[in-house]
C-alpha cells in the first residue's frame, strides 16, 4: 500500500526564511495534495498537483512533484509566524472519490 512520509519531522526557522518540506510515497499516484493543520484543528487544503505536473505555485507556496523518485516538496517562501502548523502530504491512487493516504507530517515552527 502507498504511504506518505514527510521529512523533516520537525523544522524551526526564523520568520522571513524559506521552509522546505519533503514527502515520499511508495506506489503510483493520481495526484498529491498538501494540507496544513494548526494544533488541534482541522485540515486546510493548500494545493493539489497532478501526476502529470512537475511544479505548481499558489501565492507563497511552491510544490514540486517527481514521479520518478516518488517524491514531492513544499516550499513556503518568506515565512510568517502564522505559518506555524503541521503540514501533511496526501496521495490518491486512481479515480475521483478515491481515499487519501496521509503522510506523517512535518511540524513547522516559525520563530518571530
Amino acid at each position: 500500500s502507498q504511504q506518505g512520509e514527510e521529512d523533516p519531522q520537525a523544522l524551526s526557522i526564523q520568520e522571513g526564511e524559506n521552509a522546505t518540506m519533503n514527502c515520499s510515497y511508495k506506489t503510483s499516484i493520481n495526484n498529491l495534495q498538501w494540507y496544513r493543520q494548526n494544533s488541534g484543528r482541522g485540515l486546510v487544503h493548500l494545493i493539489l498537483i497532478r501526476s502529470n505536473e512537475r511544479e505548481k505555485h499558489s501565492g507563497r507556496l511552491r510544490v514540486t512533484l517527481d514521479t520518478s523518485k516518488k517524491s514531492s516538496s513544499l516550499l513556503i517562501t518568506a515565512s510568517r509566524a502564522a505559518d506555524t502548523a503541521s503540514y501533511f502530504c496526501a496521495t490518491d491512487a486512481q479515480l475521483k472519490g478515491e481515499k487519501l493516504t496521509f503522510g506523517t507530517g512535518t511540524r513547522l515552527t516559525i520563530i518571530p
Partner: protein
Amino acid sequence: EPEVTQTPSHQVTQMGQEVILRCVPISNHLYFYWYRQILGQKVEFLVSFYNNEISEKSEIFDDQFSVERPDGSNFTLKIRSTKLEDSAMYFCASSARDSYGYTFGSGTRLTVV
C-alpha cells in the same frame, strides 16, 4: 466559500456508549468521507460513501462503525459501543464529481473515558 460543517466540536462519552458524529458536506458534492487522527499520529482513512452506499472502508471501520446519509444533507458516523482507543479527532470530508480537491470539516474531538 462553502464549508463542511461538523458537530459537535468536542464530545466526551463513557466507554460502551454509542456516539453519533454529524457532518454537513458541501451541497453539490457527491463523495463523502470519514477520517480519524489519534493524537500525534497520522490522519487515517475510515470510509468513503458515494451514491448512498459505502464505496470503500478500511480495516479500522469494523462492525462497531456505521455511516448514514439520512436526509440528503447530513452525513453521520455512528460508533455503537465506544472503546478507549476510539478517542481521536474525527474528520468529515467531501469532494465533487469534477474536482479532485477535498474539503475537510474542522473535526470532532471524541474523548472516551
